[in-house]
């Protein structure tokens, strides 16, 4: 056994002794259940995030994309106490004695929202020890929660902030399973714990997957599902059980708590949003019918490389598509990916989102959107820059159930704001400053205003401009 192996063994032994004690303590700290054995604790892993200190800030003379399709030239944004206090044209009144940044030649947008990330659950460095995104021991794992895999020290969070202007992201389990587990939405702030990042009040998501991944993973193990029809069959059997569980729960009947069923029952009651990995148009149509069969809503199809083929169906059913700018062809179900997917969905009046699913792509979602925007314009779909910014702002916010709090620059909303040093659809543009809830969390001109994770601290290049 090498040194690393021995260390792991010791760690495992320690964990074995500490585990039950810790669990007991937690249990004692919880309020006593108020009703029968099926009673669920309300929010057992609550957010501890509090906005960091900010100061009243005004940016003026900038071009503003408000995230809902609006544009203001020579605009003014006023942030105070974590909120957007005022936004408007050059005549917008602002108090006299506060910090004012000149935004001439610069652009202001709401913070970028990535609806599909695995930061923290597939952290850098990408070693097995940090590979925590897929519980591939059963195709049905709605009982696992992505937040319990998140490593807050993943350096990817800071890169997404500094290079991508990402202020909010949804962390999902992977797509090896049909029911992958609960996702969680976090603010892109460094913290010692995942609780310190959790977006207060954001609804949970349920990650589901159709297509090649589940059937390949379990087919290889000689188990169901090994086909697409097997995928749907296992899905449907699971929904039947979930409906039974949900009915009993709603009626206040006693039943043994089942973490997976709790999640699915919440989906059936509309409290948890379905985030469904799916590539092919025909499969999305099958999944839509399944949702009607069992009475739940699909909030968004993720990856959705063939959404352009059924954009009308997606519009009619009010389902968003979270898509890449130009990924295609890496596997069979991605073969028909085209650069015009996003603009075609947008043009059809369906909800279009640009997502990353990647620790590098999340640093350049603005450029991924630019690829789609350019491709759309070339085929005659004339989408304005400000309309295209909805793909990174209000549309993902809606699909994550946080559009009342963030996702656009409206008075009263969270002051999640990026000041870009040029038009953000240009390759030559980078974030200059990023505010989260009114706190300046990144400033390109201040080397100290850039997070350095524990993992990188003391390593070569720590604190370097990345």
């Amino acid at each position: 056994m090498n040194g690393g192996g021995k260390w792991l063994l010791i760690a495992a032994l320690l964990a074995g002794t500490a585990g039950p004690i810790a669990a007991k303590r937690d249990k004692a700290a919880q309020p006593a259940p108020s009703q029968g054995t099926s009673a669920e604790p309300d929010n057992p892993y609550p957010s501890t995030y509090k906005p960091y200190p900010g100061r009243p800030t005004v940016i003026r003379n900038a071009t503003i994309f408000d995230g809902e399709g609006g544009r203001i030239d020579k605009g003014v944004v006023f942030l105070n106490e974590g909120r957007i206090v005022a936004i408007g044209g050059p005549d917008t009144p602002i108090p006299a004695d506060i910090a004012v940044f000149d935004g001439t030649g610069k652009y202001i947008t709401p913070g970028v929202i990535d609806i599909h990330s695995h930061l923290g659950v597939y952290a850098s460095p990408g070693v097995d020890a940090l590979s925590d995104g897929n519980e591939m021991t059963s195709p049905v794992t709605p009982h696992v929660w992505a937040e319990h895999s998140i490593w807050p020290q993943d350096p990817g969070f800071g890169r997404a902030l500094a290079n991508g202007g990402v202020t909010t992201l949804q962390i999902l389990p992977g797509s090896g399973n049909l029911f992958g587990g609960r996702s969680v939405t976090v603010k892109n702030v460094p913290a010692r714990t995942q609780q310190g990042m959790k977006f207060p009040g954001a609804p949970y998501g349920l990650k589901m997957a159709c297509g090649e991944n589940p059937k390949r993973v379990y087919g290889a193990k000689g188990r169901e599902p090994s086909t697409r029809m097997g995928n749907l069959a296992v899905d449907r059997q699971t929904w039947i059980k979930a409906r039974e569980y949900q009915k009993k729960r709603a009626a206040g009947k006693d039943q043994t708590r089942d973490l997976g069923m709790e999640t699915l029952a919440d989906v059936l009651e509309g409290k948890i949003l379905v985030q469904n990995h799916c590539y092919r148009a025909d499969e999305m149509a099958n999944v839509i019918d399944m949702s009607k069969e069992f009475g739940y809503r699909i909030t968004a199809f993720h990856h959705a490389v063939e959404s352009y083929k059924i954009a009308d169906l997606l519009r009619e059913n009010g389902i968003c598509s979270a898509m890449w700018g130009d990924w295609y062809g890496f596997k069979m179900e991605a073969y028909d990916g085209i650069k015009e997917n996003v603009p075609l969905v947008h043009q059809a009046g369906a909800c279009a989102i640009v997502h990353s699913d990647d620790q590098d792509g999340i640093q350049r979602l603005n450029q991924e959107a630019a690829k789609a925007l350019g491709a759309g314009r070339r085929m005659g779909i004339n989408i304005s820059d400000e309309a295209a910014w909805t793909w990174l702002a209000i549309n993902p916010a809606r699909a994550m159930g946080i559009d009342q709090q963030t996702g656009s620059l409206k008075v009263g909303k969270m002051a999640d704001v990026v000041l870009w040093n040029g038009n953000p659809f240009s390759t030559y543009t980078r974030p200059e400053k990023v505010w989260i809830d009114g706190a300046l969390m990144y400033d390109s001109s201040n080397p100290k205003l850039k997070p350095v994770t524990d993992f990188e601290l003391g390593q070569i290049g720590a604190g370097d401009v990345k």
Partner: protein
Amino acid sequence: MTVQTNLRSLRAKSRSGKGISIVSRLRSKRTALAILAAVTSTPALAQSIAITGATLAIGDGSEPIQNGTVVIAAGKVVAVGAGVAVPAGAKAIDAGGKWVTPGIVSGFSRVGLAEVPGVRETNDMRATKSPFSAAIDVAPAINPFANPIAISRTAGITRAVVAPVAATSIFAGQGAVVDLGADMNPITKARAFQYVEMGEAGADEAGGSRAATVLTFRMMLREAQEFARAPASYDGRSRDALLNRVDAEALVPVVTGAMPLMVHVESARDILTVLSLRQDFPALKLILAGATEGWMVAPQIVAAKVPVITAGLEDLPSSFEKLAATQSNVGRMVKAGVSVSMGLLTGDDALQLRAATQQAGNMVALTKVPGATGLSWGQALRTITSAPAEAMGLGDRFGSLKAGKAGDVVMWDGDPLEMTSAPVAVWIDGVQQPLENRQTKLRDRYATPTEGAMPKAYEW
């Protein structure tokens, strides 16, 4: 590199394919005929052309000039610059101020080696059960009709370095340089280099440690020397032999320096190890691929006169051999005097050659980020045009718009390093290329998603 691909695989974007494809059985006669027609009817023969009024970038590191002219005859560039006269008989094309550049060169790819990387039957990148390694030559596996070639060509990529993937040895085999023209002759240079893994992936291939990698490398090259001294008496079949006769023979030009050796390493310490191999094998003609931590040892790389092909945007410690990753890597190395090219070192290597312009554009963006080191626009373009051509020893043949070079030219509808831009015309060896591909056909079919009187299948 494949290690990282595998790690990413189940996040969502899984690539490995399993089920047996029945595509070949279903392929209709009509499709086969259409393919034949495409081969025989396109492209048009090379003719003399003169592109005038261009915002012209040469690709040699210089900045763009206004109102430039490029003249191409017999498949080659014959004159370039402002104020160049249009020769009689040449077809004049007024660029009207549009950008014109040399064709983009991918400094590292696996294009043509896979149609769908996750579908095993279409994937010729690696041979996990072959008795051969260094002798493997990718050239016959390159499929000029692979859709990723057409898609890349449409995005202005005209040439690419194509490397095999190591499977059973640290040596992966011999890579090629290809053009992406719509014809059946993709090879610019076969057996253009030998490819070897010497970092984390190399340690894995060599039995589990970097020490074993270095020893394996030395011993294999010595066997190649033995083969070269007395080919007839080299016994590649004995149990002690590390190389069979074919692989030993393939490494002879590597030892003699007749064939470049592209070494994949990422960390600063591995780079120094590689450079020190010349103490025992002084003729090695090294090319560094990867070199995410190259900035830390840039002076040593300059002193060794070794070109680097890197990913450019890699800024995460995605592995322990990339702890010092930074987007300033390219800028810092160029500033130190290293010849740097960019390529697909971090995945999507069979598909996304069009990322080259994004990589280059981001190097320009860094010039406006305080504390970062980027590249001027002209320098950035050089990393995806003349620099990779020079790294492969083919700088005299293509990669820049200079008299005597291949007539690989792209005219763009905007600044080529902007993601909203795209080519409006592409020439390879002076032959104008089709800009349609499977993706543009899908786009056109589904411009409106609803079906008309007849199913979509009848719209083509």
